[in-house]
């Protein structure tokens, strides 16, 4: 598989000025077979599974609430996020894969490509805070 690289993106931290994040572009497939291109998806090796905000999920899946409901916890104490688990089809660097994905019952989350059946399918290199490369 050829190598695919994404430049880190400059974002506002609000505290220490600009911060660079490993944001990537990826395609997701809706239940009617349409591929939708998402930009600025966080490649997050700290996330067990991939996450999509509700608005995106509602474009991909007819009824997001039909997925298994679970509470996600993160590093922030006491914070919980209700999500519905669905198998979502992704395409990255010409490789198609299906990953269990948490569609949030909220839009206040960023899309994340997590490890399970996602990042773990690739050799991913975070190049000194400048580039994220997939092969």
């Amino acid at each position, binding site marked *: 598989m050829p190598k695919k690289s994404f430049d880190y993106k400059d*974002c*506002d*931290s*609000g*505290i220490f000025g600009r*911060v660079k*994040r490993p944001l990537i*572009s990826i395609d997701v497939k809706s239940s009617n077979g349409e591929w*939708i*291109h*998402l*930009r*600025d998806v*966080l490649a*997050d090796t*700290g*996330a067990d599974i991939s996450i999509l*905000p509700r*608005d*995106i999920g*509602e*474009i991909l899946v007819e009824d997001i609430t039909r997925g298994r409901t679970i509470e996600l916890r*993160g*590093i*922030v104490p006491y914070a919980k996020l209700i999500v519905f688990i669905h198998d979502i089809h992704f395409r990255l660097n010409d490789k198609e894969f299906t990953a269990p994905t948490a569609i949030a019952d*909220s*839009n*206040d989350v*960023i899309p*994340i490509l997590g490890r399970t059946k996602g990042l773990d399918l690739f050799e991913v290199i975070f190049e000194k805070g400048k580039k994220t490369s997939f092969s």
Partner: protein
Amino acid sequence: MEKNTYEYVIYAEDKPVLKGKNLKKLLQEAKIKYKGKRIAISWNAPEGILIA
């Protein structure tokens, strides 16, 4: 329904063409206005430290 703090940005090819908070409406508009071009979804997140 909670307030959506994210603003969506719709791209046609690599150019940002539409912004707003109603994603379905933005996509419908983009598919009509930019038919045949590659449409992509992005967003402007509020500033802050991100710990995912």
